[in-house]
């Protein structure tokens, strides 16, 4: 059985759902960042698979995934800096503790 677009899209969906599960179910802020990274990777797989199987000969999908990688790198750097700043203040990375805006 030949591997087609559907296989790659199903793989991307599975990866996205694992990331979503990590994002929703984890208590540690760094584990939540890991879930977000998994979801962004799943999006990249989808973009590049569509680029190969649907719009072969153009590179627009790959260009978009370059931008996704750039934004993901910026996001993880700023996110980890935020986590470190909060940890210095509170000695905790548990997102359930971060309720200063709640009243």
């Amino acid at each position, binding site marked *: 059985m*030949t*591997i087609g*677009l*559907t*296989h*790659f*899209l*199903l*793989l991307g969906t599975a*990866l*996205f*759902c*694992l*990331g*979503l*599960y990590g994002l*929703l*179910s*984890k*208590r*540690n802020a*760094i*584990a939540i960042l*890991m*879930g977000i*990274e*998994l979801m962004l*990777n799943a999006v*990249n797989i989808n973009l*590049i698979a*569509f*680029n*190969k*199987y*649907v*719009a*072969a*000969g*153009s*590179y*627009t999908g*790959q*260009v978009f*995934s*370059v931008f996704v*990688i*750039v*934004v993901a*790198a910026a996001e*993880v*750097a*700023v996110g*980890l*800096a*935020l*986590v*470190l*700043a909060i940890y210095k203040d509170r000695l905790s*990375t548990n997102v*359930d503790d971060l309720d200063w805006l709640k009243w």
Partner: protein
Amino acid sequence: MNDFIFAAAFYGLAGMTILSAAGVVFLKDIVHSALMLALSFIGVAGLYVLLNADFLAAVQILVYGGAVAILIAFGVMLTRRRNMKESNPNNRWVIYASFVSAAFFAICGWALMGTDFKPVGQQVNPEAAVEGLASLLLGDYVVAFESAAVLLLVALVGAIILAKGAKEA
């Protein structure tokens, strides 16, 4: 035969990616999760090679497998926990989270199975991916490309200031 090799490579890389991604979310020790995350990034890079995106595979290994994995490992090490064995706990909504993820997977999978994706445009044999990417990035998408460069610079400065504090940095 060629198809068979492609299928074998796909299933091998897909299994490695999915299993290590499952390790990221299900393992109890967050250091193990961080290592599994790096493994999952490498598997995704292999999948990019299968999809004729060799430049992006190299970028994936450099940026994700190198930089992001190291950053997350540093984040884990700098936020020390007393008991590493239980350093990646679930919150109290884990049942709802698994239900939402499973339902999302089911709905997306059902929609994917029922859709017939037709190729669009002329199907030419692609040139080397780097040349096509370069002419798009420095042609049609040059404004976005330069904005991405500025975004990276701002994120770099912002991360330093956030982590060290504006006075010291």
